[in-house]
């Protein structure tokens, strides 16, 4: 890391024009606190203006800039160049998603599946006031940890079950389903259980932990999915209502 220069190898592909993708190499000066997002922005602003990528908030809250960086899906804004331990950075688009151009992927399949689990809260009609839930009651212990999902798609890109089965709903959507199914305020939990219990749902997860490995928010979707499996079985025996 002594060199003040970064070799960035960036995936280029325009589906309308190119038959095959290619890699372009760029030399980018290293600055302090440089994030991978700084690298691609430098390239686009000052070297090759035609590069395409997506970003928005640059502080890891919007989840727009997920890319496959040095062998792992990561948020470009939250990945410090220093943390990669090398000056050679290979940047590719997020796996398992169609490519719009270069590093910008089409999140459509991800959100189609997201919508499938009915990701929206439907309050119970009798709940007209904010529920009174004491923090020490333990009722929301695990839900609140898993609510921080920013739908960046890193887990979706990392999941080899998504890669091999295009119907699999994927970790992010299942995690969201869990947060709603475990939420006692919600009215359509059984409906959701019936969705996630189908063959494209929780049963495709085989505890690989790739999602947890790459999640920039340090969530463990595997655990949410396990909780869902348990509830599916309980519901089958009429215990979960």
């Amino acid at each position: 890391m002594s060199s003040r220069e970064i070799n960035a190898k960036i995936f280029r592909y325009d589906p309308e024009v190119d038959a095959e993708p290619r890699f372009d190499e760029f030399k980018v000066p290293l600055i302090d606190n440089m994030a991978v997002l700084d690298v691609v922005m430098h390239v686009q602003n000052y070297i090759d203006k035609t590069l395409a990528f997506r970003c928005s908030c640059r502080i890891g809250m919007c989840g727009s800039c997920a890319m496959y960086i040095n062998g792992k899906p990561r948020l470009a804004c939250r990945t410090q160049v220093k943390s990669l331990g090398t000056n050679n950075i290979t940047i590719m688009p997020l796996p398992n998603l169609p490519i719009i151009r270069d590093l910008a992927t089409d999140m459509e399949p991800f959100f189609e599946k997201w919508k499938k689990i009915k990701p929206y809260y439907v309050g119970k009609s009798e709940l007209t006031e904010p529920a009174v839930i004491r923090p020490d009651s333990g009722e929301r212990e695990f839900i609140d940890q898993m609510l921080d999902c920013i739908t960046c798609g890193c887990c979706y890109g990392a999941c080899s079950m998504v890669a091999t089965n295009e119907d699999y709903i994927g970790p992010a959507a299942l995690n969201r389903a869990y947060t709603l199914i475990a939420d006692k305020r919600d009215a359509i939990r059984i409906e959701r259980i019936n969705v996630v219990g189908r063959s494209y749902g929780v049963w495709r997860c085989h505890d690989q932990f790739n999602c947890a490995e790459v999640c920039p928010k340090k969530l463990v979707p595997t655990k949410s999915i396990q909780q869902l499996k348990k509830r599916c079985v309980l519901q089958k025996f009429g215990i979960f209502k």
Partner: protein
Amino acid sequence: MPNREMAASQRYATHSQVWGAVGMWAWILHRITGIGLVLYILLHTTLMASSLIRGSEAFNAMLTILMTNPVLHYMELLLVGAVIYHGLNGIRLLLFDIGIGFSRQKEIFWSAMAVGAAMWIYVIMIKLS
């Protein structure tokens, strides 16, 4: 509006994987050993029955072949290894299924591997002695 139609023309997607993760390797090995064991079980049941159909002498002859052939002898060690791995990693998976060990999945994997290695070495020593 045009967004939706867009997707169809853009079929290309990369499927790069996360190779650094322990869980990924654990799963791959679990699958490989699993499929191997399925094949073995098919072979095992049919071989047993097909030799027994011809009586106890045929059975003894068959087992003598199976248990003295040096190649098969080493293959058998592999088989035992596969069973040990599949079983121990299976215990790890069962732990997850009852909700234990998510934050320690890597440590659990390596501990299971250590136990498995000891068991396998023990079997190898018995077999080769």
